[in-house]
């Protein structure tokens, strides 16, 4: 029940954040944790689940929820393996994800440019 309430609140917050901008934004990219995942992966070949968790200073649950959303959208690819019987999850940015981040960056620059005029 609490999870449903949290989920609804989160979706409402995302909507509010996205509509605060004068251009139509990709809501999947605009959320802070997801934007952090895409940005971090854009600068390196791949990152493990633990690397991302440390970088974003978030919880296992929060990271896995957002990473799954990006994976479902095809923005990131996930590889699961075992290292000394310990499961290891690695994430990579796909070309679709790189394109989405690039478009988002263009939109942010466009907003700043609009304010300067």
């Amino acid at each position, binding site marked *: 029940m609490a999870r449903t309430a949290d989920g609804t609140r989160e979706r409402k917050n995302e909507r509010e*954040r996205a509509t*605060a*901008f*004068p251009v139509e934004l990709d809501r999947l990219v605009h959320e*802070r944790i997801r*934007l*952090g995942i895409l*940005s*971090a*992966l*854009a*600068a*390196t070949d791949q*990152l493990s689940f633990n*690397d991302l968790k440390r*970088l*974003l200073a978030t919880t296992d649950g929060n990271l896995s929820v957002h990473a799954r959303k990006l994976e479902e959208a095809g923005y990131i690819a996930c590889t699961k393996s075992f290292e000394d019987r310990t499961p290891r999850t690695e994430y990579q940015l796909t070309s679709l994800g790189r394109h989405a*981040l690039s478009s988002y*960056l263009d*939109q*942010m*620059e466009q*907003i*700043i440019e*609009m*304010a*300067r005029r």
Partner: protein
Amino acid sequence: MSIDRPAVRRHAIEKPPPEIGAAEHLRYIRDMMERSGSFTAVPGYGAIAMGTTALAAALIAAQQSSESMWLAVWLGEAAVAFVIGIAALTRKSRRVGVSLHSGPARKYFLSLVPPFLAGALLTSALWQSNEVDLLPALWLLLYGAGTITGGAHSVKIIPIMGVLFMVIGTVALFAPAVWADALLAASFGGLHIVCGWIIARNHGG
């Protein structure tokens, strides 16, 4: 009974203008990229040049009859390699648009410098206590250690090169002193040239 309460005045919470939000998002993206990224501006051609001067230094050092002259040749080579390294690094970082003040670059240098500094201090100490035979192993082991730690924040070939330096350093520790110049030529010369070529080929020069 009525209670007098101070009047509560509700202030409207003003949203920041979109451009402030956009600038903050761009800062966040840059910060994430810097913190997760690796330092990719290591100069391949610079390493090849450093390797070439090390081969020349090994040839010259092998012909020296005194320990002081031998040491002078290798210290001279270290100074030349340092200048080449800094110049090549600056040039490549400008060309590929990577700041030497970025997070990955800072981590690279902070990991690289302490072992090098320790090497310089121990060189002086070993020279003063007449333990010159130990210098090649010391240089190779500490250079290797620095390259492994610095390489953890850089492209994959750098820590691999560091491991190879440490392997040759271990050999130098137990090998006869007459092998010193050959081992220094193979490592500071050969390894720099081979790894430099790999970096130049795969990481933009």
